[in-house]
């Protein structure tokens, strides 16, 4: 049985001030197995964030349903951790206290919390920054904290919405490797949204490609690259072949978007 089941999920936003309603997501299906790493790739505005937010319980689907371990998702909760594109660390908490946020909510005693926080600070490479406030951190460090904050909570599934979208290329590449290495250790089930083809291939076990707006998942491409993955893999022939294939798939969608706008 699949860990996560997305069944005919769609979303229509009501029109603002009597305007036309927005079809953000066409009825979509997706199955994600335990310890799977699925990347969702699609052009801007195709409904990637909407789909992820529905799985996260932050948005209610207009039709369809989402099941996690066979139980329907009805709202947000600790079992589905999220990392957003915008920096969402709590500015009044230090790095350590941000990571401990969910643990405090669970009522975990302080000494247990401390060892988990310390463990995660090490894993995301933030040793020495435990007592810094978010304002004192670079964007990459903030996102590393956000990932640690979500994972320290031990969610059943981790949802990431273009978490590295605002970072420069070098930092982004480092963050990809870091997240992969964490995944290789913990084998979490991950849903990772991106509009970057290389990122989608490098990170994912499978790449789900979405159609242009209003989007739905049109194909799922397996990525048979071995783990652990190293950045040099991005220049391998297998990688290039996958990339060529996905470029074709995405190109068709991007052209549709361009024509819609014209």
């Amino acid at each position, binding site marked *: 049985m699949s860990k996560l089941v997305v069944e005919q999920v769609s979303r229509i936003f009501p029109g603002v001030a009597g305007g036309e309603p927005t079809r953000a997501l066409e009825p979509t299906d997706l199955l994600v197995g335990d310890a799977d790493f699925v990347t969702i790739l699609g052009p801007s505005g195709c409904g990637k964030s909407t789909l992820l937010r529905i799985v996260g319980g932050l948005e209610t689907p207009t039709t369809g349903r989402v099941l996690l371990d066979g139980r329907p998702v009805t709202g947000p909760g600790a079992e589905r951790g999220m990392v957003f594109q915008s920096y*969402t660390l709590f500015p*009044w*908490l230090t790095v350590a206290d941000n990571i401990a*946020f969910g643990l405090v909510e669970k009522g975990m005693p302080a000494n247990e919390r401390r060892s988990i926080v310390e463990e995660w600070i090490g894993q995301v490479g933030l040793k020495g920054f435990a007592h810094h406030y978010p304002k004192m951190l670079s964007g990459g460090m903030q996102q590393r904290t*956000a990932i640690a904050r979500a994972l320290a909570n031990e969610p059943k599934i981790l949802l990431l919405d273009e978490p590295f979208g605002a970072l420069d290329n070098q930092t982004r590449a480092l963050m990809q490797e870091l997240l992969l290495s964490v995944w290789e250790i913990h084998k979490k089930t991950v849903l990772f949204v991106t509009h970057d083809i290389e990122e989608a291939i490098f990170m994912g076990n499978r790449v789900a490609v979405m159609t242009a707006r209003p989007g739905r998942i049109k194909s799922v491409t397996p990525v048979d690259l071995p783990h652990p993955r190293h950045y040099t893999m991005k220049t391998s022939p297998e990688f290039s072949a996958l990339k060529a294939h996905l470029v074709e798939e995405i190109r068709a969608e991007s052209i549709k978007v361009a024509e819609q706008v014209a």
Partner: protein
Amino acid sequence: MRPLVPIPGPRRVLLGISFFVLFFAAWAAATFSGLVSPTFLADPVTMLMDGFTLITRFGFLGDIGITIWRVLGGFILAAIVAVPLGIAMGAYKPVEAFFEPFVSFARYLPASAFVPLLILWAGVGEVQKLLVIFIGSVFQIILMIAVTVGATRRDLVEAAVTLGAKPSGVVRRVLIPAAAPGIAEILRLVLGWAWTYVIVAELIGSSSGIGHMIIESQTLMATGQMIFGIIVIGMIGLVSDFLFKAINRVMFPWSLA
């Protein structure tokens, strides 16, 4: 001068002080030259001497103390009521829908116009003075805090709920800390306004306080004393503002950093 470019600290202080110096120089020039008659405006030296007499011979320090006590008393009472209510209104929309229209209306009731009515209700004692300040401050604080809390970043609330925060946790651990620096700033602002209400309350039916001294000086045509009283209020306001800012800096280091 280029827009928004900060200037070094010492220069900022110097510029700030130089306006005070200019102000006093202009005042001295107008009064010592005889351009303005002393009946209407005392010169700075007379003002200082009158102030000295007030403090040494007429126990003016006691008046100052009483006025400060009234302002703080009324203001703290208002804050005790307004801060929790404002947070509740900002956080919970039904609470806001219930109170907001009335509070918006009450905010425009002029506190000074309540003075005669409050004298009828509460006499001319301390209760009446505190009530004037309370009425003048409480509605302002409620509304401003409700707006600040309601404007908390939605993505922070979403991050909290995906970390397992329950509704009460969202209020306690996200809305309140996120709004705290804003709330402190609102209190600082309203405390400044409270100073104008206390003087109004003391101008009518009072036998003590800075306002009372000012109105008594009017009957004696002692413009030096009146101006001294006004300047004292300004000074206390400046000091309390300064203290408030310093406390905020210590309490919310994360919002500046």
